[in-house]
């Protein structure tokens, strides 16, 4: 069973590695996105290694609970600039949806107001 799993895992590894980079960037020509970026930004961006960023983001997504079968398609849909912006920053960038945390704040505010004496809503509970 273990051997079988290892076998599957190694096959997956190979496929995943093959899938890793989009094939559109071809030798010789400068991509449109690269041309656009070169007009906006300074050259230092070019020194950040996109391939490295890609690997880093892939590893981070996996470590953060994204199913292995989806990691590659997610990475493949990102541009180099996006990958560079994510690499190392996934922990810190805004992640929309924390609705419950907002509720936490609402209660916190209510509690503070209660404690300060502005509100009087929790007294009705025994």
């Amino acid at each position, binding site marked *: 069973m273990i051997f079988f799993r290892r076998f599957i895992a190694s096959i997956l590894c190979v496929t995943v590695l093959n899938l890793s980079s*989009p*094939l*559109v*960037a*071809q030798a*010789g*020509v*400068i*991509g*449109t*996105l*690269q*041309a*656009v*970026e*070169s007009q*906006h*930004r*300074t*050259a230092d*961006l*070019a020194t950040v290694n996109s391939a490295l960023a890609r690997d880093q983001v892939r590893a981070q*997504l996996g*470590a*953060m*609970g*994204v*199913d292995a079968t*989806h990691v590659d*398609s*997610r990475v*493949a*849909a*990102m*541009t*180099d600039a*996006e990958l560079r*912006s*994510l690499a190392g920053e*996934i*922990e810190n*960038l*805004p*992640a*929309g*949806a*924390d*609705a*419950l*945390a*907002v*509720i*936490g*704040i*609402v209660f916190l505010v209510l509690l503070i107001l209660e404690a300060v004496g502005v509100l009087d809503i929790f007294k009705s509970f025994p």
Partner: protein
Amino acid sequence: MKLAAHAACAIGWLWLAGCTASGPRQEAFGETDPAQVELEATPFFPQSEYQCGPAALATVLAAGAVDVTPDELVPEVYLPARRGSLQVELVAATRARGRLPYLLAPLDDVLFDELAAGRPVLVLQKLGAGPWPGWHYAVLVGYDRERQSVLLRSGTTRRLEMSVRRFLWSWQRGGRWAMLALEPGELPAGAEMDRYVDAAAGLEAVGKLDEATRAYRSASLRWPDAALPWLGLANVAYARDDLTAAQSLYEEALARDPADVAARNNHAEVLLQLGCRSAAALEIAVAQGHARGGALEAAVTETAARIAEATAPDAAACPTPARDANVVDGGARPE
């Protein structure tokens, strides 16, 4: 647990929605926009716990006739360890579904212009503070100038009315991030060339060549003097191995901006591949002149080296080495 979460969510939203603004009236709405807009046909997907990213994205995609549900998007945009979705992943997933993710300029009236043009807008809000930032995605579907309010598809609320002041504050704190999911070829109300071509180039970069082509083509019509849309069309042709088409499209780009380094470099590369070494050498020399000290210098130097190494004689049908836009139309594909 889920029920409790939904109830808490609803209470939170009621609370947030209830605090309407009482401050001075402000004119966030565009002068020419109608007094009231509500895009009622915009679908609504109530979010599951933490999953407003997939829900909000599904809303704007489905509004643009993409057949998708939040559940299908969860594996594409949800990040379990963060219990949320990142902006970049919403952009990427939009691309993966064949739509053009257009990031709006960070201005209030731009949002309302798009609503007036009938497009729902995906926005990021920051509703909390400190350790609870409360990042939240919602979809703007309307506004009412008289009531000074906006309408959102948000969380578990189909039609959340929020004071425009409170909304704009939360949007401001969220970094003024707003995205449209456009059908490629469709232009936003206040289209800016750089933003549009940037988004189109993103489609090209991930291999969505048909979608990128449609976007570049409408950009070339909307901004007839701009070189970038033609560079994009040429690069797509090159990616499809249609060298002859690519060559004349690079000519179109260069006719609009003779100093465009990328177009000049790529034109040289294509000439080389067509077997026209002399013409390529002339082109790359010009590119090198423009590229000096710029971000593309290394790429141009590399092309120049490759051209210098080439030894094959020019193909019979090569263009005369003149850099006039109209000269090369005869086609120069070697047999």
